[in-house]
C-alpha cells in the first residue's frame, strides 16, 4: 500500500520537478535549436514511458498485493503482448533517433561560408588564433612550442606570419555568422564548452578537431573545459563575447599578428634603469622589496609576469578594487610608464638586479602547508620556481608576507575579480581552497622552505 | 578495432548460435521427465578441462585480436617506421612448428599408450619450445644491439610487446608441460597424463597459429 502510493508520488513529483524547478537548459544562443528540439522529443517519449510504466507498476503493487489463499494468475508468456510492446518501443526509438540523426548530419557538415579560427587549449587556459588577411592559418607543430611561441606556429610558413594571436582566454565572435572552431591542444585532452551554444568537442593533442555554430544573440558567456585535464581543470575558464561585426573587428585588430609578436624588440635595461628610479623609493634600489612600505620583492621574478602585472595596473585590471589599498597606490605609479616599450625597459632592468631570497617573515606550520601545495605545484612548479606555460609566477624566495596579502585578496575578491584579469580569476578559485588564515600562513610557510 | 570486432562477432555468433539452438522451440514451462534429456541436456560431451581450455583460448584470442587492432590503428600514425624484422625469427618459427609437430606425435603416442614415445615426445617439444623462447630473446638482443629500442618507435615497441605477450603465454603452457613431464618421468601410467598431453597439444597448436599470425603481421608491415 505504502509502496504504491510512494511510487505514484515519485512519478508525480518527478514530473512536477521537471516543470517547476528553476534548473534547466540555459537560453540558447546558437543555431542548434535542432538539438533542443531532439531533447524535447526525447523528453516526451521517455516521459510517457516513465509515467505509464511506473503508474502501471504502482497499480499492480496495489491491486495484486498478497491475499491469503489467492493464487497468482498462471501465464508463462504472452507472445502477442510482448510483440506489441516491442513494436511500440521500436516506434518510440525511431521517433527519437530519426530527428537525432538529422541533427547530427547538420552538426558535422560545416557550411562553406563559415569563418575558420582556432582554439588552442593547454593546461589550464584557452588561447585563440585567427587567420590574417590571407584567410589561412599557418601550419603548427608541437616541436615549435616555446614560451616565445606558445602557439607552436611554424616560423618558416609564410601563411602563418599574419595570423592574429589572442593570448587571452577571452574570445569575441561576430553575431549571426557561422564560425568553425578548429580545436587543438598542446598537452592533454581538453574540451571547449559554452553551455549556451550547445555545441562542444574535445581537444586532442596530435589532432585537430572541429565544431561549428552560428551565434544568434549578443552577450558574454562563460566558456569551460569539460574534459578532465588535471588539477586545475575546474579553473580552466574563458569568456566568449558575441557582438556586432564592427565591434568584433575592432577587438580583433587590437591583437598582434605572429610577425609582430616575433618582431618585438627586447627591453632596454639601461633605459629601464632611469624609469626604475621612481620605483626605488618603495621597492628598494635592488628591487628587494620593503615590507614596511608594502612593496614586494621584484628581483628574480619572471619578466613576463612583471610585465603582465604592470599592464594590469596600468590598464585598470588591477588596483581598482576599493579595498585594494596598496594596489590603488601602485596603479598611478604604473601609469607613469607611458607605453609597452617603457614597461619592457623597466622589466629588463629589474632582470639585471641581484636575486637574493627575501627574508622569511611568516609564522606557520610548514608541514600542514605541504598538502595543499600539491595543488599549487601543478602551476607554480614543485619547487615554486614558476612556469610561464601555466601563467604562474615564481614563488620561492619571494616576499612571503606579500603572498599572504595577495592570497587573502584573492579569497576576498579584492584581486582577480576584474573581468580583464583572467589569470587572477583562476587564482581566486585556487585561493579559495584555503579555508582560514591559519591555512594560508601554513601554506606560505611551506613555500618559505622551498629555497 | 576492425580486427577485434571481426573476431568478436565471429565468436559471439558461435555463442549465440549454440545458445539459440538450446533455447529455440523449447517451452520450458512444460514439465518433462528428466530421463529423456539425460543425454542431450546441452552439456558438451567433452571433459570440463577441455571446455575450460577452449574458453581460455577464446579469451586469449580476444587479447591478441585487440593487440593486432591496436597495432593497425597505431600504424596509421605518421611517425611509424619500418620494422627491421630480425632474420632469426624465421628460424624461431621453424622451431616452434617442430615443437608443435612433436606435441602432435606425443599425443598420438599417448593415445596408443606408448610411454617411452610420450616421454621422448614431451621432452623434444619442451626443448624446442624453450629454444624458441631463447631465440626470441636473441631477437630482442639483436634489435637492442642495432639500436631499435623499445621507446624509439612504436613499431619497435609493438614488436617487443607482441613477442612478449606471446612468449608469456608459451611460458604458461610450459608450466603445465613441466608438471606433465615430471609425472611421465616418474613413470605414471600413460592414461593419467593423456588428458594433459592432449591439452598441451591443443595449446601448442594454438600458440603456433597465433605466432604465425603475429609474424605475418610484423612481416606485412615490414615492407
Amino acid at each position, binding site marked *: 500500500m505504502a509502496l504504491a502510493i510512494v511510487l505514484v508520488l515519485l512519478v508525480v513529483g518527478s514530473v512536477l520537478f521537471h516543470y517547476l524547478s528553476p534548473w534547466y537548459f540555459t537560453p540558447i544562443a546558437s543555431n542548434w535549436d535542432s538539438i533542443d528540439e531532439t531533447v524535447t522529443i526525447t523528453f516526451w517519449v521517455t516521459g510517457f514511458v516513465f509515467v505509464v510504466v511506473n503508474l502501471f507498476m504502482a497499480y499492480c503493487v496495489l491491486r495484486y498485493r498478497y491475499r491469503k489463499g489467492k493464487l497468482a494468475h498462471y501465464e508463462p508468456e504472452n507472445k502477442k503482448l510482448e510483440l506489441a510492446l516491442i513494436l511500440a518501443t521500436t516506434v518510440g526509438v525511431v521517433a527519437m533517433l530519426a530527428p537525432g540523426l538529422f541533427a547530427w548530419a547538420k552538426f558535422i557538415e560545416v557550411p562553406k561560408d563559415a569563418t575558420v579560427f582556432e582554439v588552442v587549449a593547454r593546461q589550464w587556459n584557452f588561447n585563440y588564433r585567427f587567420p590574417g588577411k590571407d584567410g589561412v592559418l599557418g601550419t603548427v607543430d608541437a616541436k615549435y612550442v616555446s614560451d616565445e611561441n606558445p602557439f607552436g606556429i611554424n616560423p618558416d610558413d609564410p601563411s602563418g606570419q599574419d595570423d592574429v594571436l589572442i593570448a587571452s582566454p577571452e574570445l569575441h565572435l561576430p553575431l549571426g555568422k557561422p564560425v568553425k572552431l578548429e580545436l587543438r591542444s598542446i598537452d592533454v585532452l581538453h574540451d571547449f564548452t559554452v553551455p549556451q551554444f550547445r555545441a562542444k568537442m574535445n581537444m586532442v593533442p596530435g589532432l585537430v578537431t572541429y565544431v561549428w555554430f552560428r551565434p544568434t544573440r549578443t552577450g558574454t558567456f562563460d566558456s569551460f573545459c569539460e574534459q578532465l585535464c588535471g588539477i586545475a581543470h575546474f579553473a580552466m575558464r574563458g569568456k566568449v563575447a558575441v557582438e556586432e561585426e564592427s565591434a568584433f573587428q575592432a577587438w580583433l585588430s587590437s591583437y598582434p599578428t605572429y610577425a609582430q609578436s616575433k618582431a618585438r624588440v627586447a627591453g632596454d635595461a639601461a633605459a629601464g634603469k632611469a624609469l626604475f628610479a621612481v620605483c626605488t623609493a618603495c621597492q628598494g634600489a635592488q628591487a628587494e622589496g620593503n615590507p614596511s612600505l608594502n612593496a614586494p620583492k621584484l628581483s628574480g621574478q619572471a619578466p613576463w609576469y612583471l610585465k603582465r602585472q604592470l599592464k594590469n595596473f596600468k590598464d585598470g585590471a588591477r588596483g581598482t578594487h576599493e579595498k585594494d589599498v596598496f594596489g590603488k597606490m601602485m596603479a598611478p605609479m604604473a601609469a607613469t610608464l607611458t607605453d609597452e616599450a617603457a614597461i619592457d625597459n623597466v622589466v629588463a632592468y629589474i632582470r639585471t638586479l641581484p636575486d637574493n631570497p627575501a627574508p622569511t617573515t611568516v609564522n606557520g606550520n610548514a608541514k600542514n602547508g605541504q598538502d595543499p601545495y600539491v595543488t599549487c605545484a601543478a602551476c607554480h612548479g614543485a619547487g615554486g620556481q614558476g612556469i610561464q606555460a601555466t601563467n604562474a609566477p615564481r614563488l620561492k624566495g619571494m616576499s612571503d608576507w606579500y603572498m599572504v596579502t595577495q592570497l587573502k585578496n584573492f579569497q576576498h575578491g579584492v584581486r582577480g575579480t576584474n573581468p580583464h584579469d583572467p589569470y587572477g580569476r583562476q587564482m581566486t578559485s585556487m585561493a579559495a581552497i584555503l579555508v582560514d588564515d591559519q591555512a594560508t600562513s601554513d601554506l606560505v610557510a611551506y613555500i618559505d622552505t622551498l629555497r | 578495432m576492425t580486427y577485434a570486432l571481426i573476431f568478436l562477432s565471429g565468436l559471439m555468433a558461435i555463442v549465440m548460435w549454440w545458445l539459440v539452438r538450446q533455447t529455440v522451440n523449447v517451452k520450458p514451462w512444460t514439465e518433462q521427465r528428466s530421463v529423456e534429456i539425460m543425454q542431450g541436456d546441452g552439456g558438451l560431451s567433452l571433459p570440463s578441462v577441455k571446455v575450460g581450455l577452449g574458453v581460455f583460448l577464446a*579469451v586469449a584470442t580476444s587479447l591478441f585480436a585487440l593487440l593486432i587492432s591496436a597495432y593497425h590503428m597505431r600504424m596509421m600514425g605518421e611517425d611509424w617506421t619500418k620494422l627491421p624484422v630480425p632474420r632469426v625469427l624465421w628460424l624461431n618459427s621453424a622451431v616452434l612448428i617442430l615443437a608443435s609437430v612433436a606435441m602432435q606425435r606425443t599425443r598420438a603416442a599417448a593415445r596408443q599408450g606408448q610411454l617411452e614415445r610420450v616421454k621422448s615426445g614431451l621432452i623434444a617439444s619442451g626443448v624446442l619450445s624453450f629454444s624458441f623462447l631463447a631465440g626470441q630473446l636473441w631477437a630482442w638482443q639483436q634489435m637492442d644491439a642495432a639500436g631499435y629500442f623499445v621507446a624509439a618507435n612504436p613499431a619497435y615497441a609493438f614488436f617487443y610487446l607482441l613477442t612478449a605477450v606471446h612468449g608469456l603465454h608459451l611460458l604458461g603452457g610450459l608450466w603445465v608441460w613441466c608438471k606433465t613431464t615430471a609425472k611421465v618421468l616418474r613413470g605414471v601410467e600413460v592414461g593419467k597424463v593423456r588428458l594433459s598431453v592432449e591439452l598441451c597439444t591443443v595449446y601448442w597448436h594454438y600458440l603456433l597459429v597465433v605466432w604465425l599470425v603475429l609474424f605475418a603481421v610484423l612481416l606485412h608491415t615490414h615492407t
Partner: protein
Amino acid sequence: MTSITHDESAYVPPAEVEEPELYHPKSFVGKYIWSQDAKVIAVQYAITAIGVGLVALVLSGIMRLQLGFPHAFSFINPSNYLQFVTMHGMIMVIYLLTALFLGGFGNYLIPLMVGARDMVFPYVNMVSYWVYLFAVLLLMASFFVPGGPTGSGWTLYPPQAILPGTPGANWGIVLMLVSLAFFIIGFTMGGLNYVVTVLQARTRGMTMMRLPLTVWGIFMATILALLAFPALFVSAIMMTLDQTLGTSFFMPALVSQGQHLNYNGGSPILFQHLFWFFGHPEVYIVALPAFGIVSDLIAVHARKNIFGYRMMVWAILAIGGLSFVVWAHHMYVSGMNPYFGFFFATTTLIIAIPTALKVYNWVLTLWRGNIHLTVPMLFAIGFVFTFINGGLTGLFLGNVPVDIPLSGTMFVVAHFHMVMAVSPVLVVFGAIYHWYPKITGRMLNDTLGKFHFWVTFLGTYAIYYPMHYLGFLGVPRRYYAMGTTVFVPESAQSLNEAITIAALIVGAIQVVFLYNLIWSYFKGKPAGPNPWRATTLEWQTPHTPPKHGNFGATLPAVYRWAYDYSVPGAAEDFIPQNQPPGKKAKGLEQALDASDLGAQKLDGAGTPKPIGS
C-alpha cells in the same frame, strides 16, 4: 499455454552419482581461508568487495561534502578531490560491483542453482580470489605511495593520466594499472569457472532453458567480461609501458607545462577506443547479473512465473551481443571520426529495445501476481523504478546530438549512477536479504530491512534525480568547485547542498544494514531450508547453510523450469524444480525425500510458512 503432463509412471529416481573427489578441509584455515568451496570463496569475495566498497562510499561522501559546501573543509583540495573521484569510480565499478556480482553471487549461486557440487575447477577458483585480493591491496597501497593514487578520473585517459599536472601521475597510475591487470587475471580464472560450470556441471534435467534467470544473467555477463577485459588489459599494459619505458602508444608529441616530452605520434583516441571497448560491456557485466537476480526475486515474491521467460533469455543474449558494438557512444565528443556517430547512435538506441522488454516483463510479472512485499521484493521494485529512470536518461546520452550538450556535465553523472550504481546496488541489497537465510541459516531483521530500503530508495532518488537538472544547466562533472559563473544561479548551490545532505544520510544509513548483517548472524530468526517457498535448487539442499558438496549424497534431478509458481491444480503455490511429475500433491516434503534419499530429513521443515506479506 499451460500444458503439463501428468504421468505418474514417469517418475525416475535420481541416479546414484559417484561422490566426486572433493577437497575436504580439516582445519579452520583450510575451511575458511584457503578454501576451495565456492560458497566460502563467494563469501570471501563478498566481504572483500563490500569492505573496499565502504572505502569508496566514504570517498563519495567526501566528494559530496566538497560539492555541497565548497571550501568549508581544509582536507579537501583540488588535487585529492580528483583522487577521490578516481578511486571512488574505479573501486565501485570494478572492485565492488564486478567482483560482487560475479565473484560473490556467481560463486555462491551458480553451483547451487545448476545442481552442481562445486565449481568445476575449485583450485583455480580459490586462486582467483587471492589474486583479486592482491589486486585490491595493490590499489589500496596507492593511497600510501608518494603522490598518492591517480587522479585521472576512472577512465584514466592519457595523456593526462601520466603527466605532471594530474595527481598520482608517477606511482599512483602505475599501481592502478598493475592492479587492474591483476584483477583481470584473477577474474579470468573465476570467469572460466563460471562459464564451464554452467556449460558442464548442470545436473540431470537442467537444460539451459530450465536455468533460473540469475544464472543466465551471470553466465552472459561472464562471457562479456572474459571477452571485454582483454581490452582493458591491453590498454593497461600499453599505458604502463608509456609511463615507465617512454613508449608512445597513446602519447602524441606534446609540451607539458612548458617541457617538451619525448613522446611522438601516439593516439589518445586509440586508448579511448580500447577503454570503452571494455567499458561499455562493463556496464552490462554489472547490469546483466542484476537483471537476472531481480527477475528471480520478483518471480518468487510475486508467486508467479517470470513473464515471458524465453524473451527474457533472448533479451539477455541480444543485450550481450549488442553491447560490443555500442562502445563509441561514450566518445561522441572525443574527436573521433564524426561519421561514427550515425552508427553508434543507431546501435545504442536499438539496445534499448531488449532492455525495455525486460522492464515490461518485470512489471508484467507483478501484474495479476500475488505480491508479498517482503524486503527483497521492495528492493526489486525499487530497482525497477530506478532502472526505468536511469535507462530512459540513457536514451538522451545515446542519441548523438542530445549527448553533445549533456556530455561532460552532471547529467552524465546522474545517469550512470542511476543506472549503474543505484540500480545494481538495490539488487545487491535485495539479493542479500533474499539469500542471506540460505547462506547463514537465519533471517535478516525485517524492520531494519524495511527502514534500510526506504531510506536507501528514496534517498538515492533524491540524490540523483535532481542532479540531471544541474547537467541541463551545464554544470560540468569532475569540478572541484563551480566558482562564480554568469549562468549558474545561486539556487543551484542550494540544490547541491540538498543533494549532499541526502547523500550523507543514505551513506550513514548503510550502517544499519551492516548492523543487521552482523546482528542477524547471531540473533536472527532461524530460517529453515526454504523460507521464501522458492522453486530453485539452492532452496532444496539437505542442509542450511549447504555443506561442501551442496546436495548430500545424491545430486538432485530436475524435472521442470525454475518458475512453477501458482500452477493451477497444484497443492502448493510453488513446485520445486527437483520435484518429479505427479508428486506435486505432497509438496516440499516429498520433494526433499525424492531429491535426497540418503540425507537426513529436516526438522520441521515440511511446509514452511511464508515470511513477510
